[in-house]
């Protein structure tokens, strides 16, 4: 019990950072993913291939490799003074972006072709059709998988303990190592993740119901 009480302040600090990295990272990832997802549907070959290569490379490699490559590899090569938190946010953004791209692509493709035809037949340009007709409908469909991606990315931040970011898992690990107790700290780390993920799931389900998708 003492250890449970003892580890809690550390974990509260850790979870804050975990949350911040996830929210900012997924938000940027959503923007990247929106463009990459539309890029996957682009007629322009260059845009299509850039988007496709991005998605395949990121989805095909572990996020742990990505963060190590970014934090140690790229910053070393380019002589960047990249701090750990920025590196983590960038890694989550790039990683989530690839998955969001596929979500966005699927969402757009799920909209009946007749919608586009109806938009074009009243004289809208293809960009206007996307903006006023396809996108608003696709967005409803992608909210559930997007929420899912948020939860996945949140859990992925635990891998950033590998570069000693003071996120939730790292804080628990540090406490465990300094007190030589392992059961309580890791139990609490798990519970702390659930404190965010379970309410997220509940909110998500409520949103889904409201959108009746």
């Amino acid at each position: 019990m003492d250890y449970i009480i003892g580890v809690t302040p550390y974990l509260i600090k850790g979870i804050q950072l975990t949350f911040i990295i996830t929210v900012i990272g997924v938000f940027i990832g959503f923007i990247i993913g929106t463009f990459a997802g539309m890029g996957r549907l682009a007629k322009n070959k260059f845009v299509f291939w850039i988007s496709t290569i991005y998605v395949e490379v990121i989805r095909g490699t572990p996020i742990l490799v990505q963060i190590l490559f970014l934090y140690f590899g790229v910053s070393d090569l380019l002589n960047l003074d990249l701090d750990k938190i920025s590196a983590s946010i960038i890694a989550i953004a790039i990683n989530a972006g690839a998955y969001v791209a596929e979500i966005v692509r699927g969402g757009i493709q799920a909209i009946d072709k007749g919608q586009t035809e109806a938009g074009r037949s009243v004289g809208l340009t293809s960009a206007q059709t996307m903006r006023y007709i396809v996108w608003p409908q696709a967005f409803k469909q992608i909210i559930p998988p997007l929420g899912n991606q948020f939860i996945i990315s949140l859990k992925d931040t635990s891998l950033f303990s590998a570069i000693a970011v003071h996120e939730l898992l790292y804080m628990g690990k540090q406490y465990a190592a300094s007190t030589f107790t392992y059961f309580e700290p890791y139990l609490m780390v798990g519970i702390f993740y659930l404190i965010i993920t379970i309410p997220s799931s509940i909110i998500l389900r409520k949103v889904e119901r409201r959108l009746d998708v």
Partner: protein
Amino acid sequence: MITVTDLHKSFGSNEVLKGISNKIEEKEVVCVIGASGSGKSTFLRCLNALEEITSGNITISGEDLTNPSIDINQMRSKVGMVFQHFNLFPHKTVLENITLGPLKVKKETKEQANERARALLDKVGLKDKEDAYPKSLSGGQKQRVAISRALAMNPEVMLFDEPTSALDPELVGEVLSVMKDLAEEGMTMVVVTHEMGFAREVGDRVIFIDEGAVVEEGPPEDIFHNPQSERLKSFLGKIL
């Protein structure tokens, strides 16, 4: 009004339209009939460039649709299209469905667009539905909204792609009567349809398409009462 010259359209190696030529005059109501898969819908879709044509030529009000330098969006706004499955925008109200084109393409003010949309809804008998969403409407009501949406752009010609085929039988009449009013007002119309009664009553000319070519065309009386070709006889035999 519309001149089609030697229109060919292929999907991959499948040639759907095999050289169609036709002239549609102003204020003319042309009904296009034929079996499923005959190419009649494809023909209609080529007229507002929803399908890219393989070869041949289409001009609308003297403007060449195949000329890559024309503004296709401007062109399309002059050609109203009504689809078999309505294709209303489900996330917009009836009024928003109708005003989207006028607001974004014609850059009308909201007042202008709303006023015109309300007048059109009144005309098609849906005055009280302007704030409804499409999913709460019956098929016949949806199609009347879709017609209003196309009319809101003040098109020079209206294309109908089997406008009543997805409707329950008891709802067909309300849509046909709107179309009939439109014809009487002098709208140029091209209607792909299975409603032979409508073709007979409202059509100025009927075109029978089979296997991607015009087999026979003429005034409805001739087509329905005095068919010349075997293929038209057998088609009419099956459906009448």
